[in-house]
């Protein structure tokens, strides 16, 4: 119980906000009906230059940014049962499993329990807590069976997204309802969890389709190194739907929603409750002049009640628009804007309170991006996003990218961007403990954290069997969050740290045999942060995050026969840089899938097969949660 309490406090104290509205991931070239295509020869067809239906999604190989795509198949092959495990597949993400239900996830440093400068979207809906500025990975869940892909962009909001996130963007994208027709029932059970999932999809009308799903998860909970319970047992129910409509004129509409509730630590003295619901609509259509408009709006309700931590209820309304103009000469221009407003209620708990207790928040932004083909092989992308919020003056986030494509399968790129993490309620309105005298006070003068980020990358596919990507970056970081002794006693939150971070991200794929695919990834992270002159911060840079210096990930997928497939994944994470120190660890996961009949898949997964247990993350309690070896048997039946 103690560890949970302290963990929640840590959550409250160390959270950061990166607010921005993503560029919508949907953009499509105009549809042209080409009567004469069918009269062309195979050779002529092969030489035709085409646009793709989902221009941006399918051309990720051309994006001048550090982008890794986890495909839905990768996830299903891996045996992952939650988003945290699925994200472990990305070589450019740091993922530390905290206990059976929670994860710390970061990119390019600042790994923390509620990490921090990383924007996360599920189907275009931001799942950042704009109060604590982080993602609660034990709250966010999707039916992994229906995930199309997860795009992981390390680095500031890539040119495609507009300049928005600080250290990365995770886009979790589920399949269109048209691609999930029919029923699927999944039951999984093991020594640490029990899951049931049910989905059914069917056509609706001439050009539409829908799906509905429901899932129940039961995590049994883990223990700490001192043998006490981690109080992390979790029961959770979630249900939702998605409807997609594709009109003949290329217009596409989506309506989707989810509802969930859960309890954490039901065996502990203080139970935590979570619940939430959201509804999102998106409509994209082409105009006669060849440009494409995407409109999106959503409402989202999220509530968590943590009696010995931080309780919060946030209701938000968001609307966004993007206009991808038809190509003008050598320019591809996108324009857009968005507005979001929310009402946040933070009732005092046993350990903290907010002043004011409730607050209306809003954000608005506009952005423009121009992709300019300087020559046949050289493209410049210029982007600018301007954002205002309830706390600060307008923030300008420019982004400049150059891409040189000397040959079809080679891309050299460079980028310079300004990233901003704007203040959150936890910086401005937060007080600890719940009664005076306060040890920590929010600061109404707290200013945005800023980063000037420089990247250089190279991506190539030298043969049909081998591809790789290398990215190096340098982050100049200023105005980082810290503490300063307050004349009123205790500490007040301040902008008192700075420094730089550098790193290297390398990954590749090799199709060794027709039935054997190998992947590798290396992530090197160096943070060099210090207190500013005059700062009397009590903890120093360790409060901002705790990163490994080296990470190595290897993966092999071996198709033994048309019905049997073995997936193996190995990851090594070096010792975390700061105290509390987590020793280096490695874990090897296996998943064996057998298509018993065309309708029935059986799979057996062993996670961390070679160790009885290991530790990936430690809070300040001195007794971190241990992640035990896990066995999981899954049956998947389609009908």
């Amino acid at each position, binding site marked *: 119980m103690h560890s949970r309490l302290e963990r929640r406090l840590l959550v409250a104290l160390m959270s950061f906000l990166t607010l921005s509205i993503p560029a919508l991931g949907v953009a499509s*070239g105009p*549809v*042209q*009906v*080409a009567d004469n*295509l*069918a009269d*062309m020869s*195979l050779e002529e*067809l*092969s*030489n*035709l*230059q*085409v*646009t*793709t*239906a989902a221009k941006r999604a399918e051309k990720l190989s051309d994006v001048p940014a550090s982008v890794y795509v986890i495909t839905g*198949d990768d996830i299903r092959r891996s045996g992952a049962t939650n988003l945290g495990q699925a994200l472990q597949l990305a070589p450019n993400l740091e993922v530390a499993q905290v206990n059976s239900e929670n994860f710390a996830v970061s990119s390019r440093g600042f790994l923390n329990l509620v990490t921090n400068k990383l924007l996360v979207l599920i189907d275009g809906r931001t799942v950042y807590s704009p109060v604590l500025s982080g993602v609660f990975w034990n709250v966010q869940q999707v039916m992994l069976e229906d995930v199309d892909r997860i795009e992981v962009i390390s680095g500031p909001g890539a040119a495609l997204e507009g300049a928005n996130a600080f250290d990365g963007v995770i886009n979790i994208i589920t399949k269109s309802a*048209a*691609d999930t*027709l*029919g029923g699927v029932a999944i039951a999984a059970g093991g020594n640490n969890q029990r899951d049931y999932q049910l989905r059914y999809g069917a056509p609706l009308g001439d*050009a539409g*389709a829908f799906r509905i799903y429901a899932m129940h998860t039961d995590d049994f909970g883990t223990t700490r190194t001192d043998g006490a319970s981690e109080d992390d047992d979790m029961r959770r129910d979630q249900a939702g739907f998605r409807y997609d*409509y*594709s*009109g*003949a004129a290329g*217009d596409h509409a989506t309506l989707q929603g989810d509802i969930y509730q859960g309890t954490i630590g039901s065996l502990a003295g203080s139970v935590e409750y979570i619940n939430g619901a959201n509804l999102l609509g998106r*409509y994209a*259509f082409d*105009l006669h*002049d060849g440009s494409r*408009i995407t*409109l999106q709006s959503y409402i989202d309700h999220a509530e968590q009640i943590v009696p010995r931590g931080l309780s919060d209820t946030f209701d938000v309304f968001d609307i966004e*628009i993007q*206009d991808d*103009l*038809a*190509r*003008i*000469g050598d320019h591809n221009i996108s*324009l857009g*804007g968005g507005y979001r407003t929310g009402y946040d209620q933070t009732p005092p708990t046993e350990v903290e309170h907010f002043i004011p207790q409730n607050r209306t928040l809003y954000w608005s932004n*506009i952005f*423009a991006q121009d992709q300019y083909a300087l020559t046949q092989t050289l493209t410049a992308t210029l982007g*600018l996003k*301007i954002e205002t919020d309830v706390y600060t003056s307008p923030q300008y986030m420019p982004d400049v990218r150059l891409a040189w494509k000397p040959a*079809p399968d080679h891309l050299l790129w460079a980028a310079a961007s300004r990233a901003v993490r704007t203040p959150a309620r936890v910086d401005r309105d937060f007080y600890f403990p719940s009664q005076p005298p306060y040890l920590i006070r929010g600061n109404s003068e707290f200013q945005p954290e800023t980063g000037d980020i420089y990247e250089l990358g190279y991506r190539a596919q030298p043969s*049909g069997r081998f591809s790789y990507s290398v990215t190096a970056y340098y982050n100049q970081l200023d105005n980082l969050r810290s503490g300063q002794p307050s004349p009123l006693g205790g500490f007040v939150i301040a902008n008192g740290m700075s420094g730089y971070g550098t790193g290297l991200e390398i990954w590749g794929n090799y199709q060794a045999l*027709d*039935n054997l*695919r190998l992947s590798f990834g290396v992530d090197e992270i160096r943070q060099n942060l210090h207190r500013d002159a005059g700062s009397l911060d009590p903890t120093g840079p360790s409060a901002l995050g705790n990163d490994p210096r080296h990470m190595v990930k290897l993966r092999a997928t071996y*198709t033994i026969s*048309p*019905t049997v497939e073995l997936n193996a994944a190995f990851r090594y994470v070096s010792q975390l840089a700061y105290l509390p120190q987590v020793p280096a660890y490695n874990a090897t996961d296996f998943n064996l899938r057998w*298509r018993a009949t065309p309708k029935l*898949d059986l799979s057996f997964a062993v996670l961390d097969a070679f160790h009885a247990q290991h530790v990936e993350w430690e809070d300040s309690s001195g007794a971190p949660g241990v992640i035990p070896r896990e066995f999981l048997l899954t049956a998947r039946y*389609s009908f």
Partner: protein
Amino acid sequence: MPRAFKRLFIALRPLAVAWLVCFLAPGCEALAQSASVPPTEASVRAAFLYRFLDYVEWDRGHLEPGQTIVIAVLGNDEMLDEVQRTIAGRRSHEHPIEIRKLSAGDDLTGVQVVYVGTPSSAAIAAMAKRAMAASALLVTNAENALALGSDINFVETDGHVRFEVDLGNVERSGLRLGSGMLSVALRVRNSS
């Protein structure tokens, strides 16, 4: 779909764009239009599908002279529309062509070509077995699909639609492919 809404938007759009442009980059409003629009990937794939018919030989029993060639499309409505738009009403030599939407459990008797539009490897592997048994040509659009039993798989490379062929799978389906097709393929493999 909300047509009135769309009209309203179209009416308001110049205002919105003007606002954005003025806000962001005063004076860059003289925007010309570009005329030529390249075809979509889907329409080129549909055209390929039609052209493949020239190179495939089915055994008697699976395609009699003059019999209608049935192309069944699984999974992707957009692709089905595109195939219909591109091929409907055409003939392949003496054979009329029928295009059909296919659901996962449908019988493949009398189907000569199956196109699986989804990238789902489970769907492809399941369909591969049945297409092979029915001597239907299986065409897919997914990474690694040949290893799952596909005969012809589309690949997008640098803005071009190409295709790869597995002669082993073709042979096991009881089909033969003309060499003119193999010379254009991006890759030809021969799985055992």
